[in-house]
């Protein structure tokens, strides 16, 4: 090796080229706004701790928590440690924590006041000196959404929308991205006044789940599905995101949000996009997000006067789930006794493009359904003609390919097979492949994956501004129609939703699958 070659290839350079070893992000500071909140202790810091323990963080890394609660650095560290020990029993190491926690700091301050940002800026400058974090900043907005615009404005005014001395500045926003299309646009405009779109990382942890990413792997790494993945072969698609839990302690939040804003606008729309999108030319941020946005653009607007033909909502009443009698939504903590907030949504969506013209996508999500399940069911057209007798094909149904996201990630294909014996009787058989069983690698937590991508500067699994707005645009007529209604259909907890949802499909001569 020549002298020049040797100089060009340092140990870190070589490691970057080695597929067998992981990429380590550049040094950085992550500033968490709303750091005294639940998300920091329960998700963010445990994910960062796991990354540190697993040698995925640089030595020069720091966390700065910021919120109004008065606390010292040590009190903040102690609080995080307690949460970690609780959630990481058996996987917690005192030595790793000692090393990791030396990089954790806390500032108390009002995120509305400019002086907080002057103090923060000075503190980050000191960290650059002491911990060599090189001016790279990540601002994680885990505060109340009502503060997002103000925090961004203050960051911009303080000149913190750019990294120091050639470093980067990135902004992370937790969902919900607005409450409707107008507020989403306003929020995006507020943020983009100070930050370029390339600096903004809108996080929907659903996309960090391995199982959700596997939808792309299934579609675009297996040649056999793509030729039939269109309106020529597919009769309709059913997307189900079901939860067996109720709202629990999140009653106050849920009263404001409802299933449409909490799940459909983000998680369900993401699954719809991944199911319906065209193959991206590369698995990079722009290619993937561009294709997702095209799906949202192609979604047919729901006519204002016909919302009930396309959308159904419901609210769970008391009932039985997995052997336990549970309260109805209106009896839950911090829920109004006459609440009309929806805990169930079913929609019929058409994606008007060449691939999907005329093929309905039936979407449903709900709380207190019989089981937790997320799946995409592709129901194919029946055979145009069968040579077998009608009696012989009574048990035969059209082919269905089900992509199960959770639980038991895998696919099942319903196919017709001959029943053994004399005569020719054909019946449907499920061919079930639990492909999650093939790899028992421990899947990283969604936040771990997304925080690492964020530090590596890869926004592929984050939401772009037009994606967030596109999803709101589809739901806008539904929200408008429902906002004026005083009545809401109910369904007993532990059932698959209100009767009106069954009727939505029955009108089209179809029925919901039982996941």
């Amino acid at each position, binding site marked *: 090796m020549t002298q020049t070659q040797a100089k060009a290839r340092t140990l870190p350079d070589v490691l970057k080229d080695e597929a067998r070893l992981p990429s380590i992000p550049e040094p950085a500071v992550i500033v968490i706004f709303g750091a005294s909140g639940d998300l920091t202790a329960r998700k963010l810091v445990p994910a960062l701790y796991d990354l540190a323990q697993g040698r995925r963080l640089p030595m020069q890394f720091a966390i700065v928590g910021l919120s109004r609660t008065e606390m010292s650095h040590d009190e903040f560290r102690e609080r995080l440690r307690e949460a970690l020990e609780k959630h990481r029993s058996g996987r917690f190491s005192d030595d790793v924590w000692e090393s990791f926690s030396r990089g954790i700091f806390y500032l108390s301050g009002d995120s509305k006041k400019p002086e907080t940002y002057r103090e923060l800026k000075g503190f980050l400058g000191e960290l650059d000196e002491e911990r060599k974090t*090189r001016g790279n900043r990540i601002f994680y907005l885990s505060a109340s959404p009502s503060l997002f615009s103000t925090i961004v404005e203050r960051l911009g005014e303080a000149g913190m929308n750019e990294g120091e001395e050639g470093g980067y500045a990135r902004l992370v926003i937790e969902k919900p991205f607005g409450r409707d299309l107008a507020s989403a646009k306003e929020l995006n405009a507020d943020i983009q006044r100070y930050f370029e779109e390339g600096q903004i990382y809108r996080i929907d942890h659903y996309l960090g789940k391995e199982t959700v990413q596997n939808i792309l792997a299934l579609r675009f790494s297996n040649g056999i599905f793509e030729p039939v993945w269109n309106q020529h072969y597919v009769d309709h698609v059913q997307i189900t995101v079901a939860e067996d839990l109720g709202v629990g302690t999140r009653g106050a939040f849920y009263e404001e949000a409802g299933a449409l804003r909490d799940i459909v606008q983000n998680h369900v729309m993401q699954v719809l996009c991944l199911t319906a999108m065209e193959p991206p030319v590369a698995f990079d941020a722009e290619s993937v997000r561009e294709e997702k946005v095209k799906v949202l653009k192609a979604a047919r607007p729901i006519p204002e006067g016909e919302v009930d033909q396309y959308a159904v909502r419901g609210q769970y009443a008391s009932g039985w789930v997995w052997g336990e009698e549970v309260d109805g939504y209106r009896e839950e903590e911090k829920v109004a006794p006459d609440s009309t907030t929806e805990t169930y949504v079913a929609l019929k969506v058409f994606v008007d493009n060449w691939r999907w013209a005329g093929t309905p996508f039936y979407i449903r999500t709900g709380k207190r359904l019989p089981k937790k399940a997320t799946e995409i069911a592709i129901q194919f057209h029946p055979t145009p003609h069968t040579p077998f007798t009608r009696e012989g094909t009574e048990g035969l149904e059209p082919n269905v390919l089900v992509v199960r996201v959770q639980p038991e990630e895998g696919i099942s294909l319903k196919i017709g097979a001959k029943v053994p014996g004399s005569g020719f009787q054909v019946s449907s058989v499920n061919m079930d492949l639990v492909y999650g069983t093939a790899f028992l690698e421990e899947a990283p937590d969604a936040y771990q994956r997304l925080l690492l991508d964020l530090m590596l500067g890869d926004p592929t699994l984050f939401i772009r501004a037009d994606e967030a707005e596109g999803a709101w645009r589809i739901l806008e007529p539904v929200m408008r129609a429902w906002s004026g209604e005083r009545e809401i259909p109910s369904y007993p907890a532990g059932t698959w939703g209100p009767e009106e949802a069954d009727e939505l499909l029955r009108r089209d001569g179809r029925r919901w699958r039982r996941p």
Partner: protein
Amino acid sequence: MIGESRSAPRGGAMSVEEIERELARLRANEDGTLSLRASVLNLIVVTDEGSAEDVTRSVSELAGRYPSRAIVLICDPGESETRLDIGLSAFCNIRGGTGGTQVCAEQVTVHAEGPPAHHLESLAGPLLIPDLPTFLWYPGHFSPRSPEFAAMATLVDRVILDSAASRDAEVSLGELAGLIGEEGTPAVGDLQWVALSPWRTLLAELFGSPERAGALDEVYRVEVLYGPGGESRAHLLVGWLATTLGWRLRAATRLGARAGGGHRLHFLGPVGEVIVAMDPNSPDAKLRRVRLYSEELSFQVSRHRELREARATVMRGEDLIGERTVHLGTFDLGVLVGEELRYRGRDEVYEAALITAARILSR
């Protein structure tokens, strides 16, 4: 994960068809349902009677992470009488919690004595599941000159070895270096190299920031402290540093017992001489500590006491200017082999490090 081990009642000599039929029968549950077979690879293991039990345990652990068909060949070619004895078992795990799906991985154990032990490929070949990558693992001493290896190599995509399994690292690394140079040899993976991965990541990361990257050019001394069984690992590490940083070996001196043993190596780096002191006197860990000295700074990665943690530090004189403690990971046999099963192709970085390590030891 709940698992159960199922064994076929019969054994002895069986045909391939009988083996397949019996394996399918093992997947049948008491309630009449059939457990799934999930397979991502074929794993052939060549071992001897003494190690068979440990190997079988590791294979069953691996079955959880990499459901496969494992073909364990326990051979004794020294016997004059021919003996062929087949044992079948399945490791079935319930995935997805209570009420979840039973998924089984299979193991075919073949005891071969006498002439068949020289033709293991004729036993392993027909038992491979088609269309899946095939790995050949030698848990114990391996020599590319062993009678069955050449024919077995044609069946497989990757060979997994342990360069520390032989007592003589010089012979072991030398033979491996020779093997990778031969045309048609499958990709080679070495468990000692896998065990070095966290060390390499930590060392590289010490120089990750621009203000420290320049110190790499100024490294003039390296100290490696290793212990019993760590000779191969330590030399691979030095081989990696040398090939990566463009150091050329000028001299290697083997120190006598009175001087503590080990090696003193003289390299010529891009900007000057680099001395590497290899000290084999660690009382505990196979690889205990690596230190690099540059003009201003010293860099160290060391195992943290007897725990799973490692500590990486950067010092300026006596001042600590950077530190982190991380999990080094576990080095159980099953974990190391599992890491190797993740990869398919040739590892050119390893091959370059191996060649340099072998060259050092041959001096």
